[in-house]
């Protein structure tokens, strides 16, 4: 998916799903993305273990992503991960900021992350853009990087 197209609505409520430039993935559908973030699907087409990365629980962007892709509210998701933890499966790693997500994804061939489209840079590929319709979370809105794209 073209980065320009993804960036058109940078101030809107869009979520760009990113992978490393080295990753074989060129596009990902929402069902697969949901399965990757719920750790129901483990391996990508190159047999690497997917490494989904989340933002902190109080992030508005994470709320948008959860609503639009995972389709579970926070208590349900917490219940799901409690049950998975009992089976030895842990939730996705959490990184502290969108810049950290971009850096990590760029260096990790099987990583999958999500950021606002204005954060995606040349080191990563945008493989899906999700438009979020629904109630806003109450946390502070994320700002785009000060000098355009990260």
């Amino acid at each position: 998916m073209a980065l320009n197209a993804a960036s058109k609505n940078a101030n809107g409520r869009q979520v760009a799903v990113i992978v490393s430039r080295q990753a074989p993935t060129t596009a990902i559908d929402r069902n697969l993305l949901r399965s990757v973030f719920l750790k129901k699907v483990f391996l990508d087409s190159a047999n690497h273990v997917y490494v989904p990365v989340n933002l902190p629980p109080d992030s508005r962007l994470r709320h948008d992503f959860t609503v639009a892709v995972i389709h579970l509210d926070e208590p349900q998701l917490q219940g799901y991960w409690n049950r998975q933890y009992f089976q030895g499966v842990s939730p996705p790693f959490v990184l502290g900021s969108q810049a950290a997500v971009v850096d990590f994804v760029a260096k990790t061939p099987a990583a999958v992350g999500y950021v606002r489209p204005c954060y995606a840079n040349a080191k990563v590929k945008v493989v899906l853009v999700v438009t979020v319709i629904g109630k806003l979370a109450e946390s502070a809105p994320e700002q785009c990087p000060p000098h355009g794209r990260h």
Partner: protein
Amino acid sequence: MSKLARGPWRRIILLGFVLAWSGPLLADASGSMSPAQPYHLGQGLYFPQQALRVGGYADLQFHGLDDQRNALVIEDLSLFLSKDMGARWKMFGEVELGDAVTATRRQLTTRYANVDLERFYAEYRVSNGITLRVGKFLTPVGQWNLIHADPLVWSVSRPLTTTAAFARHSTGAMLYGTVNLQNHDLDYWLFADDSQAIGFARSHDLAYGAYGASSPLRNDFAHALGGQFLYHMIDDRLSVGASAVRYALRDPRQQYRLIGIDFAWTGRRVEFSGEALQRKADNPALPDEVGGFLQAVVPLPRSLYLVGRYERYRSSIQPGAVYIRNIGLNYRPVRGLFLKLERLDGSRNEALDPSGWFFSVGAIF
């Protein structure tokens, strides 16, 4: 399997596990790196260099049965170890110290304490939809048995339907996974148990494990073959499952056939779940076990939940059906921490699941 085969089988399996746990048996072929993660209650402690996660849960329970002495029990102290080895291999182990300390007005004792190797297995991811598991694992019959830990279930007490008719643990091999059917997930588990030959760690599996129950009957598989399917719909808000197992117990040494169904539905203001099963013995002289329960959970303000359950169970060891009603509160102030208060009543339930008040507090760590 002959008796001679028992020793070598056990030794081979145990040696494999020891080798796998003790070092980097398989190099990390995933090409992935894992970021360091701060510790959070309910998620375990992760060591990224070793791809090792250490966690567990603990709970303290109060049992106030109507006609018996009250007791305070450190019911479970459970430790998990989970280690990824490359892209496809994984090891998992759980050791549980049960009934570690029991306190009544007259005594403080550890004589009921028992140590169980609850689960111990290796997994190989054959593909995204197929994982092979070998070792000791929870028997996939119904949804409760697979997540039976006190912090994960809504009530202190456990329905008879989830314990009385089958062994809670199996030792053998399992294929499981999730496949996508028309944008809905179908989870499946297919397993073969040969506990008689390779059962290297028997569990403390009383058929009627409720506090104060008078039946010492155990449920241990000799052999079993079965599986379960669980179909998810409406973004996982509804799941419907079915189980079937053909098995022989160690004692009484009988062949049985079990079928079960289960469901869970989560709405905005209420959650319903239920399981039902029927067990038939090959010997027609033995009575069936038939039962089921329906549970409702209503969220209240401030992380509080109202829990109600009704169960009917006809056991093969006493005439007439048992009826059990539970009503309770569950408080989950933060992730990983819970408190539960519950009242259990019933009819003809004195021997299998006695009436009383129950309280538990615990944490997943």
